[in-house]
């Protein structure tokens, strides 16, 4: 078998709503290799959350999978019986959510929650407790043995997020999905979490799918990046290629907007005027066309395909097609 762990292959997902079908994901393709950190960047409404819930198959009742496959170790998750899927979640694929304040059960001690999630293990209670303490130590919680008996409210936000990471890694998953795990935290804690994730990734050798809208965090942590806009992948590739030589106007302008690299006080900060198109009533052609300052007649006529430009660097823009640029 190849070293590919997760393959998203032409995935399209709709939500059925009163206004008609909302086309939340369209033709999404990318893969995650073993032991690799892949970042997904995109703004509100780009489909990041739908993508995660589709991978885990934790979708709302009005979700319709229109086409495509989510292959994990070669097996299409969308076809698995629910029983098998349950066995996968939390064991082979685990997740860290955005809000550390709401991740834990407030009425159970941290230790109890860490014992509960080992329900599949045949180890004794004492062994499970030792394992829980060891994991807390691994994410840098001081005095882990004693703190197992404390409740979530006795920990700070940064600690709770680290506990969530410890719990997600306890089963030594092959894939960890991190959904904006640092958004709710201060910059200083954000850095602590990123550095901790990097260390743990090396130690456990799991792959990480890291979702964020913070470009600085993505640049620091990830090996490869997938850029999403309005339910589609517009560009993907090696993190250096994406940040130093973006091939889609959206990626380029998103990076320009980040005030982190504007070192002098700017009178006017760059923005991307306009709004994301209505996904229930999609315009024809390229979805970014209305906000793009390089749009051409062809962009209105045809949807640009996600094409490989060079090794592993893909972009969906007509500007990269020679014949169109003329």
């Amino acid at each position, binding site marked *: 078998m190849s070293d590919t762990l997760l393959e998203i292959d032409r995935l399209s997902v709709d939500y059925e709503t009163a206004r008609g079908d909302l086309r939340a994901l369209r033709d999404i393709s990318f893969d995650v290799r073993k032991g690799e950190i892949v970042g997904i960047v995109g*703004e*509100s409404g780009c489909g990041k959350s739908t993508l995660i819930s589709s991978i885990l198959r934790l979708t709302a009742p009005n979700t319709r999978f229109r086409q495509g496959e989510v292959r994990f170790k070669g097996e299409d998750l969308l076809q698995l019986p629910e029983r098998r899927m349950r066995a996968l979640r939390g064991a082979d694929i685990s997740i860290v959510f955005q809000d550390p304040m709401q991740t834990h059960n407030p009425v159970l001690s941290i230790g109890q929650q860490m014992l509960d999630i080992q329900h599949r293990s045949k180890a004794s209670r004492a062994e499970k407790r030792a394992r829980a303490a060891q994991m807390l130590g691994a994410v840098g919680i001081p005095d882990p043995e004693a703190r197992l008996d404390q409740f979530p409210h006795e920990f*700070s*936000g*940064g*600690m709770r997020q680290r506990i969530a990471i410890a719990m997600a890694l306890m089963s030594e998953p092959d894939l960890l999905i991190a959904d904006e795990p640092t958004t709710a*935290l*201060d*910059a*200083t*804690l*954000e*850095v*602590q979490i*990123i550095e901790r994730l990097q260390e743990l990734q090396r130690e456990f050798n799991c792959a990480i799918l890291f979702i964020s*809208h*913070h*470009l*600085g*965090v*993505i*640049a*620091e942590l990830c090996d490869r990046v997938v850029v999403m806009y309005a339910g589609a992948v517009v560009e993907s590739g090696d*993190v*250096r290629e994406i*940040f*130093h030589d973006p091939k889609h106007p959206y990626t380029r*302008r*998103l*990076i320009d*907007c*980040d*005030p*982190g*690299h*504007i*070192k002098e*006080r*700017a*009178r*006017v*900060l*760059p*923005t*991307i*005027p306009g*709004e994301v198109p209505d996904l229930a009533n999609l315009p024809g052609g390229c979805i970014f066309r209305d906000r793009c300052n390089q749009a051409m007649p062809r962009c209105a006529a045809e949807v640009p395909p996600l094409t490989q430009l060079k090794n592993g660097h893909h972009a969906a823009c007509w500007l990269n097609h020679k014949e169109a640029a003329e």
Partner: protein
Amino acid sequence: MSLLDVKDLRTSYGQVNVLAGVSFTVEPGETYALVGESGSGKTTVIRAIAGLAPAQEGSVKFEGREIRGASEREMRPLRKDIAMMFQDPVGSLSPRLTIRSLITEPYRIQGMKDRDLDAEAKRLLEMVNLPAHFADRYPYQLSGGQARRVGVARALALEPKLILADEPTAGLDVSVQGELLNLMNDLRERLGLAMVIITHNLNVVRHVADRMGIMYLGRLVEEGTTEAIFKHPRHPYTRCLLSANPEPDPDARLERIALKGEPPSLLRRPKGCEFRERCPFAQEVCSQTPQWEIENGHGLRCLAPLG
């Protein structure tokens, strides 16, 4: 005379002294940023200024007049001059009111019956670059960025002299964050507004603030012009905060200064310098308590400042 003069402001909730003496001034037309980690007391400072949080000691002077401990009745006319922008853009708008009612509510509260509310709503929406037909919408029909603009419009309704903005860009996408900051910069210049902005996003501070104060455990530890602080941070805590800012460049190798642990509990304030236990530059002298010292307009509370 400063527009706002906060002196030795102290707030305790029971045993927990959240603000342990905060002093700063804001001049007319100036933007002042308060920066610090969660729990450093930033939000309590501006809530105390607006009379929304208690402050047992110290003084808050607005245009020379003491307003700390003012009753709601005394505060009400002042709310024309001091407007507040709250942190959660959608949560701060009543879901059952239209945008028109929301942004013209200040006129009703102040009993300004002579105003044409439709015309005012139109004028305010135009000011924050929203189309006039948004007046008939409800908060749930707005995006996060649009809700923020409504928050700005409402804050501007009574033509205040001072805006207190709590994390004005939290939760916004970068493309929209720029729009909001440009709008605030523009309004400030056109209307001569002064602002106090609270944020932990240092990238934002650099572009909007004239001066900034860095808070730790309910006290200022450094204060100066934004330029000076970004160029030459003197307090190790400031330096740590600045270096914790991830850069949108995979090849940027930051000289990151690791901040040890997390802020100590306010119930067990450390002796001596309160930052000492986490400080990578701590020295023996730091077991003594540092005093607030001002040199060339740059304030500092540190016994072993960086060069």
